[in-house]
């Protein structure tokens, strides 16, 4: 069952991660300020906590799932070079480094 959850893609690219972090920090701080002022006004600390929890829930919905806006600037990888047996002679250094990795 766990493998089903692990197979859902949840990645974001780097700019998306930065955007997600800014979004949730902004939402939490804004809800904290609003909650503090409202709680101080009606003299009940419970409402401060409720407003903070509401901000937390909104942040969860906005930043936890990998929305498309977080995948707008993906890294441009080099095209994959197809591996043939001729490659081993042409690039001996890569071969040695591959061997070192396999030993580890």
């Amino acid at each position, binding site marked *: 069952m766990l493998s089903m959850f692990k197979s859902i893609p949840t990645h974001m690219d780097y700019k998306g991660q930065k955007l997600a972090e800014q979004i949730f920090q902004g939402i939490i701080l804004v809800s904290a300020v609003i909650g503090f002022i409202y709680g101080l006004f009606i003299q009940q600390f419970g409402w401060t906590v409720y407003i903070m929890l509401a901000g*937390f829930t909104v942040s*969860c919905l906005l930043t936890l799932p990998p929305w498309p806006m977080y995948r707008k600037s993906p890294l441009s990888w080099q095209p994959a070079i197809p591996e043939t047996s001729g490659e081993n002679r042409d690039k001996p250094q890569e071969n040695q480094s591959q061997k070192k990795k396999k030993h580890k």
Partner: protein
Amino acid sequence: MNTVLSRANSLFAFSLSVMAALTFGCFVTTAFKDRSVPVDIHVSKVMIKNVDDFTGPRERSDLGFVTFDLSANLQPIFDWNVKELFLYLTAEYTTKSNALNQVVLWDKIVLRGENTKLNLKEVKSKYFFFDDGNGLRANKNITLTLSWNVVPNAGILPLVMGSGHKSLAFPESYEAAKSY
């Protein structure tokens, strides 16, 4: 921040830190408030007996019985940082053998949201008013004061004394009730 769990971890830790800062802010807004209110104590009946003191050495000590009325408005004390008040009525006096005696006669817990106007009549003491010896008989000056312990959401728990006390004298002989 590449996986859901990593993002959830960052988000939750940040929220907890902000919540801790808000709680500190709550403490700072009420740290220097004066939490004393005027209290009115009236005593209706006083009596003493001389009995064996079961709480200490087997000697006969004075046991006092006080019936009193209390009234106070505790509403100004409750702000957003007060969870409950622990009220207690203290009797303070001097005897020949001890310079200072303080005995708690009665207590009550007032939670936030309960009725904060205290108006009790003909209340008997909850706890035994034993003296260490025989110093209550004919004692001219026994002072009753109402104090409370403020239990906050965040911060220090101060012991505050209400402004207003009642001084009374105990009767000259045992088993003789004195009415006020």
